[in-house]
């Protein structure tokens, strides 16, 4: 299963939001990162077949998703807004959407199974209008997963969830992606969430896809990662001779490197020069810097 975003230009009422975006989403967890207004929601709408692009297409296993009703059965889409009908109860909402996907077999069992995972069993007979934002979000997740989709498009799913619920969601998504060969496309502002989940990352900025690859590749794409070295002695002369500029930060010396090989060479060189390396670790939050740099 694979989603190919091919040369997509899309927007609303003639205003272009996404420009010539080319991306591939494979099985596993694909994180979409980008600042507010970058075009992530528009990307999700195009990938789910909700919005027709001005140019280009989104292909799922080679088939254009827009207008393909059959293909949409494979997609589970959680938009930014919940998509729940306020006057109905939770159960009525789930049954309503289940009927659209023609789920009749063991529907109640499926609803209960998912309701237990997201801890919403006690809310099944409650009107949606009476629920909090976090509860609605969890119900919306249950609805999205009801028909066992092979492509999951989750637009900021943890938005409004408390930490326990968010953790439960991440755990579920990880298990789902790994066990069932599902393509998960997941957008988030939570950088630690991205770090925890990502198999691959795509970065969108000002309507363009500026990067897609692994987290490591992303760090290198942006020119480097800061590492902190805790050493016995003065590493400055050795580091300078290797062409690095080191800055003191508390009991650490901070150096910017582009690869793990460089880290190994630095440690080797320091050790050769009788400077004991006690600790090496990544410092700063690379993803925050990522978002700042692509803004």
């Amino acid at each position, binding site marked *: 299963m694979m989603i190919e975003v091919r040369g997509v230009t899309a927007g*609303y*009422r003639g205003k272009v939001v996404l420009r010539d975006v080319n991306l591939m989403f494979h099985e596993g967890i694909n994180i979409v990162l980008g600042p507010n207004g970058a075009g992530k929601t528009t990307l999700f*709408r195009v990938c*789910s*077949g*909700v*919005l*027709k692009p001005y140019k280009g297409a989104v292909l799922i296993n080679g088939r254009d998703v827009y207008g393909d*009703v*059959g293909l*949409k*059965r494979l*997609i589970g*889409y959680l*938009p*930014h*807004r*919940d*998509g*729940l*009908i*306020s*006057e*109905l109860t939770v159960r*009525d909402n789930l049954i*309503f*959407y289940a009927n*659209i*996907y023609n789920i009749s077999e063991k529907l109640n069992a499926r609803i209960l199974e998912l309701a237990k995972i997201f801890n919403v069993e006690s809310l099944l007979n409650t009107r949606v209008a009476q629920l909090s934002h976090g509860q609605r979000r969890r119900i919306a997740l249950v*609805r999205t997963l009801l028909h066992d989709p092979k492509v999951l*498009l989750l637009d900021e799913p943890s938005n409004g969830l408390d930490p326990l619920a968010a953790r439960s969601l991440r755990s579920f998504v990880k298990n789902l992606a790994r066990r069932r060969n599902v393509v998960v496309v997941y957008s988030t502002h939570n950088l630690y969430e991205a770090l925890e989940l990502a198999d691959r990352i795509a970065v969108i900025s000002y309507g363009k896809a500026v990067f897609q690859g692994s987290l490591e590749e992303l760090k290198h794409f942006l020119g480097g990662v800061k590492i902190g070295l805790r050493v016995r002695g003065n590493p400055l002369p050795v580091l300078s001779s290797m062409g690095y500029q080191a800055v003191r930060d508390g009991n650490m010396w901070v150096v910017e490197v582009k690869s793990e090989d460089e880290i190994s060479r630095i440690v080797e060189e320091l050790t050769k020069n009788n400077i004991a390396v006690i600790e090496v670790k990544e410092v700063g939050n690379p993803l925050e810097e990522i978002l700042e740099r692509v803004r």
Partner: protein
Amino acid sequence: MVRLRTSIRSTVVYSVAYGVGIIALSVIVGVLYPGIYTPMTRHALEVLAVRMLGAHEGTVSESILGVVAAAVYSPFLAALIAAFVASGAISSLFTEDRGEGVFEVLLAAPVTKRDIVLSLLVYTLLVSLLVEAVVMATASGVSLLSLYFLGYLRSLGSYYIKLSVLLVPSLTLPAALISLLLTIVAPSLGSVRTGLAPGQNVLATISLLPALVPFLVLNINPRIDPSELAFYTFILSVIITFILLLFLPRVLKEETLLR
């Protein structure tokens, strides 16, 4: 159907309230200000009372003009009120569903734009018929009973029956359908308030026109057969339905359904 089930109680309550309001208003106006009726209106009321209610010519006195007006005009007023209420309900439903992201989820589901328009259409038809039936039953029922006990009602003429059964629903339907069409094509119209009544908007006002025109025609020439008028308004409903089902899904852009 599920949405209608949940809103049925409030819809019926509003409709009954409006029905009672019609009677109260026309009776109060008729009794307190009988001079409000112009000679043309008075003549029309007398003719309609004879044709619709089987009253004897010359028996419609000043004192019961208000009640007669309620009985005679209630079908039209029921259609106007039903059109107003149905338009408001459709506009609210569309705005709410769009705001909550319901259309967005539906567009991602194995559902076509035609399916979405069809579901809105069915809701529109059911709400308008329900409202019209309740308002009509309340307003006409009470006013006719009043006339009966006052001894002015001999029998319901076929004219009244044709009016209530044929013309009134056929006035409400095009109004509701026009409202749906405008709501989908120009949803921003729903947020423009006319101030004519609480919660009413430009969409509701425009969609009243099909209900208003036959009302004026029958007032000017009460001898027109209402089934003839009903036929023309029925044709209008069919045309609008065709537009909704055949053309609108093709030209409807998804961004209209998205927030």
